[in-house]
Structures are given as C-alpha cells and as structure tokens.
C-alpha cells in the first residue's frame, strides 16, 4: 500500500515540477533590490519543498511557512516530494528550476553540490544563528573542502535499535535493559519463537540495510576503520571487513524472509503492527507512531546498538544531520535564504514542534527539559557515542555508495555465502572509480 503511494507521488513529483515551472514563468519578475530584507521579501514568493514526511510533514511545513509569511509578508508556496526521487534526481532538479529552499542532508550530499555551485553559500545565515548553534553542528554543516556551509543544521537523529516496550515485557525481558549482545540475541530469539520477526530489515531501496552494516562495522572494527573503508583507505577484502559480514550473517536467520521486498516504511509498519522484535533504523519514523496514536508513541523505545568489541564499546553512532539548503538557481535566492534561516531559528523550531515534530533539534536555544521521554532517550542514545557518523551514503562518495555498496549488500542478503566474491567486486569497483 505504502509503496503504491510512493509510486503515485513519483508522478505527482513530475506534475509538481511542471506546475512549478509554469508558476515560475508567471512570477519570475521579482526584482532583487537592495532594500532591507523585510521590505524586499514583502509580496515576493518563496518556494519550499518538503522532502517526504506524509501528512505530518505537510502539517509541520505549513505551520513554519505560515509563521514566516506572517512575519515577513512573503508568500510561501510549498510542495511535498517523494524523498527518494528528490534525492535521485537532485542534480537535475537543482540545475532546472528548483524551489528556493528545502529540507536537505548534511555531509557529502550538501558539500558536493555546494562545491559544484548548485547550493547557495549560507555563511552569513549560519553566522547569524551562531549564538544558538553548537560548534559541532556548524562543523558538520561546513564543507571540509571549501570551508563554506551549504546547509543550516536543524535536526539530527540516531540510527539505533528500536523496539516496543510492551513486546519486550511480554517475552519476559526488561525493556529498560537491552544493552549487551546477548540481550539483543535473546530478544530476537524469544520474539521469533512467538512466530514473529526477530529483526526486521528492508533493502528494497538499496540503502536501508546500510544502517545495519555501518553500526556492525563500527562496533567490530571501530570508527576510524569504518570511515577509512568508506573513503578507500582500507580494503573491502580485508579480513576485518569480512568479520563484519560474519556478524551480519548471524542476524539473517532472525530477519523477515522478504527483506528485498520491503523498504523503510515496511519496516516501520512491522513495528507499528507489533510484528517484529527489534530493528535498526533512524528515529525519524517516530513521527508516524505519534500520528497513529499517543499510546503507540509511548510504547516506542530506542537504545544504542549493543557492544561487540570491548575495545570500542558503544563509542560510535550514525547520527545524520539534517537541515535546510537553498538552491543557488532558485528564482528568489534571498527569499530562500531568509526562509531557511527562519526554519533554523528558535522561532521556526518552536512552530515545528507545536505542529507535532518529534525530531531533536541541534539548536541550543531549545530547552531539552521539555522533551518527552522518547526524545530524552534519543538524546541519551546520541550522547552515549563520542564518534558521530553521518550514514554510509553521506559518508562515502555518491557514485560509490548507491551504485556499488547498496547492490552489494542486497546480493549478500540474497546469498550470504557469496560474501568473498561480493567484497572482491566492491573493491574492484572502488579501484575503478575516477580519482581526483
């Protein structure tokens, strides 16, 4: 069902692009005068793209955009697009007639396009927000190559082990204490005994299972090895990498049989319908639990992935940093920058949270004591790690992560015994990439 809506929104994306194109022809005569920001924005149109998020995403966007419109007198035209499609066609969209501002991702995904001149330099905006932003977030949003920020950091979330407290209680375990590898295996075994899925995984889109690989590799071989591996300084054929896949193979018997048929939303539905013991996923999906019912949301819990190698403990985590970027080719770059800054400011954040956003904001202005218990737990999970990774497809170059590592993990899940052959192929494909 949900895949079906995805396909539909794929088409509405195109339709949206067409309508957007027409709209731009009509409203493209907005002069960029040197008058002060407020008067310049008044009456101008700023275009905003919400990247996925369904009804909740639209609701949050409307709340923040309306507040911005009220404050500045600008008109905000918003659309929602399918997240994967927007991502896959990003370079083309940014070179066409993109919306002025949109939710986007830090790391390779914004740095690369910023350096290529497709995203606006947001140095001035990030400096204005400096009093409220922690240095780590500013560093995460800044390209190490050009030293410029192309994204205003707003939220981040942990990729960690999620489960439902009620289900863990039912199998006779303590939901507050799932913290060793043995606990984890026991949780999966007992859930599976009840005829449910022990560890749910999806890999239809090619990226979902990267989260499991990231954390296993970081737990077994440490943060440095993981980042080295993704950037070609360590080898995929190394015994250390193979060790990671040995652990990955241990999880396969606990998984649903249709890993390659479902995507992240299928995984979410499995947990929502109480059909799985545990899953490794980014906490962003909690918004959908809250939208379903407060009881479902209260039942949801998250803990760090358990320690495997005592040398590293639980010192690393995938915590992708999200934020707002501005298209350099937008029709209203100044308006886009102002809107982006509003989204990342304490004012904008307050609006988003009021509208039901359960994300954790990086902004220091926000009083974390008002967080609900799930968000406090998310903060605790994030705080347990000292090394922050951004997720495989943001830590590695784009022509490698999606086209090479994604299919390799899919092949591994199809036939785990082929792992040596698969890893040799991954290394060969890395070696064949054009190097600068």
């Amino acid at each position, binding site marked *: 069902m949900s895949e079906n809506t995805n*396909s539909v929104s794929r088409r509405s994306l195109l339709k949206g692009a067409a309508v957007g194109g027409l709209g731009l022809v009509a409203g493209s005569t907005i002069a960029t005068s040197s008058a002060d920001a407020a008067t310049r924005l008044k009456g101008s149109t700023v275009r905003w793209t919400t990247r996925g998020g369904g009804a909740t995403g639209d609701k949050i966007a409307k709340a923040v955009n309306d507040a911005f419109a009220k404050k500045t007198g600008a008109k905000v035209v918003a659309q929602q697009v399918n997240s*994967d499609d927007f991502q896959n066609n990003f*370079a083309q969209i940014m070179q066409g007639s993109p919306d002025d501002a949109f939710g986007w991702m830090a790391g390779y995904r914004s740095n*690369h396009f910023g350096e290529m001149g497709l995203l606006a330099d947001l140095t001035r905006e990030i400096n204005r927000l400096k009093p409220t932003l922690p240095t780590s977030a500013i560093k995460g949003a800044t390209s190490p190559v050009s030293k410029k920020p192309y994204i205003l950091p707003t939220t981040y979330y942990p990729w960690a082990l999620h489960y439902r407290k009620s289900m863990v209680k039912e199998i006779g375990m303590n939901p507050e204490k799932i913290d060793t590898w043995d606990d984890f295996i026991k949780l999966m075994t007992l859930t599976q005994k009840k005829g449910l899925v022990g560890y749910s995984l999806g890999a239809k889109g090619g990226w979902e299972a990267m989260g499991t690989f990231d954390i296993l590799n970081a737990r077994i071989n440490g943060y440095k090895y993981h980042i080295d591996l993704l950037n070609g300084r360590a080898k995929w054929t190394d015994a250390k990498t193979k060790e990671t896949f040995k652990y990955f193979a241990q999880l396969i018997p606990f998984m649903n049989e249709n890993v*390659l048929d479902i995507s992240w939303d299928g995984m979410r539905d499995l947990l929502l319908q109480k059909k799985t013991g545990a899953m490794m996923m980014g906490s962003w999906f909690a918004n959908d639990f809250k939208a379903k019912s407060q009881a479902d949301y209260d039942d949801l819990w998250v803990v760090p992935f358990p320690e495997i190698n005592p040398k590293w403990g639980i010192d690393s985590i995938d915590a992708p940093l999200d934020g707002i970027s501005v298209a350099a080719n937008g029709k209203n770059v100044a308006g886009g920058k102002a809107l982006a800054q509003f989204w990342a400011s304490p004012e904008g954040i307050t609006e988003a949270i009021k509208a039901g956003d359960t994300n954790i904001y990086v902004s220091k202005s926000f009083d974390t004591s008002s967080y609900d218990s799930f968000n406090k737990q998310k903060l605790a999970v994030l705080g347990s790690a000292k090394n922050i990774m951004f997720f495989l497809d943001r830590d590695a170059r784009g022509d490698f992560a999606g086209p090479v590592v994604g299919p390799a993990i899919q092949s591994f899940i199809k036939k785990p015994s082929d792992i040596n052959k698969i890893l040799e192929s991954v290394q060969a494909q890395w070696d064949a990439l054009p190097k600068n």
Partner: protein
Amino acid sequence: MKTATTSKKTRSRRSLSKTDRFTLSAFVGIPTLLQILLLWVPAVVTIFLSFTYWNGIRLSDIRWAGIQNYKTIFLNEPLFYEALKNNGVWLAFFVLVATPLGILLAYQVDRGIKGHAFYESIFYLPVVLSLAVIGIIWNFMLQPGGFVQGLMGLDIGNAISIWGNPDINTWVILGVASWRHIGYIMLLYLSGLKSVDPALKEAAAIDGATEWQIFRKIILPTMKPVNIIIVVITLIESLRAFDLVYIIYGSPTIFPLLNLLVFQNFAGQGLSMKGAAYAVILLVLCIVPIITYLRIVFKEDLK
C-alpha cells in the same frame, strides 16, 4: 529499394511546381531537422561523453577517460551481466511465448470462435494502460501488505517474497509485461488478418490443406509487412524495458535491466559517464539486430 526510390524521385522532380517543391521540402526538411537535433545530436554527444569522466554539472570538469568506463562495466560490474541476462530472458520470453501467443489469439479471434468479441476486448484492455500504470497496479496487488498477499492471509512480516526473490520475480515481471504485450500483438496482427482475402483461405481449404498448413503457407506469407513490424516491436520492447520495473522497485539493483543501469548512473549523486557508456551499449544492442534484420528482409524484397 533505395536506388529504386531515388530514380523515381528524379523522374518526378521535373514536373513539380514551386509550391509543391516548397511543401515537399518543408515536410521532409522539418522532421529531418528535428530528428537530427533531438535524436542524433544527443546520441553523438552521449557517445562522446561515454569516453569521459564527468559528474554532469560543470562543463569544465569533463576529463578524458578513454575506454575506462567500458572497461569498468565489462570487467567489474556484476550488475551489467545480471542486466544482460534479464534483458536476454525478457527477449527470449517475448519471442518464444508472448508474441506467438498474441498471434495465436489474433488468429483464433479472426476465425470467429465462440465469444471472440469478448476475448478480444478482454485481451485488449491492458493495452490501453501504460506500463507505469501496470506497474503500480501489480505492485499494489503483489507487494507485502498488498491485495493478493492479504487474500492469502499474509501480513507484511510473513508475506511471500515475490519482487525480491530472484527465482520468482523474473517470471512474475515477464508475466505482467506479457499481460500487455500479448494484447498489443493480438491487435496488430488482427488488423493485418482482416485484410487477408478469405478467398485465399477457402481455396486452400478446398485443396485439402490443414488449418496449420493454411496458417503457415497462406497467412504468414501474406502477412509479411505486419510480421516485420511485430519482430521489430518485440525486439525493441524487450531491450528498452524500464518503466514497469522502475515503478515496482524504485531502485535498479534487485532486478537490473540495461535501461535501469543507464538511469542509475545518470541519476543524482551517483551521476557518472558510466551511464553514457551503458546507453551506448544499449544503443548498439538495439540497432545492430534491427538493421541486420531489416536489410535481410528488404534484400529479399528486391529479388
């Protein structure tokens, strides 16, 4: 064939008036210009780009790569061979099963078997849907949590793996694609059959020919122009397959096809000129058999 038309043209050109000549050159010239501009220029640019490294953003970043993109594809990409296999199976299935089935149906409908109008509309129905819509429909039916899985009492957790299971998905996808292709071929063939003179068939029947003999010796040869179209369509449909699978998977890696790999390597952050190299490989695979086939057919005509 070619020489025949040109000599005819030279003969008739003398009698053309000025307006005629203008109209003719406009009718020939504008499509030719569009064809060159929209088809041949991009094709040549693609061929050039397939020998470069580029991420598709700034022209100044283009670097010469020689045959490296092709080398990578042929030597290091397991997906390429999987795609080649899938396209090959697709082609074989269409040639051996779907297309003959369409022809058989057309023949039966044309013979006026009982309820032929009913069958005709039933098999024709999927043809009005685009493959993208067909993908949405069948994905909705067969995916975990989908309609068919629900009927079988399976929820997302224990749903049968259909799209993800390499032993099953090929046949399901080919079945779905044939669902439309059979009707399409039936329709094409039916329109041809209507123009076959029934007297020919009757004469053969009186001479004692069996049904199979009539089909082979009378119908097939008289239907030659339609046969050519059907062979070419079957070839092209199999090699250019894309939309159905893209809609079902959203990513090109579980059931790779050449066209999906072209797309993947041209899309988003993964953009590299490996995509152009894939496009050139696909172009060669499409054009070579079709040109060879057409040349053989037209040569026979000349004789």
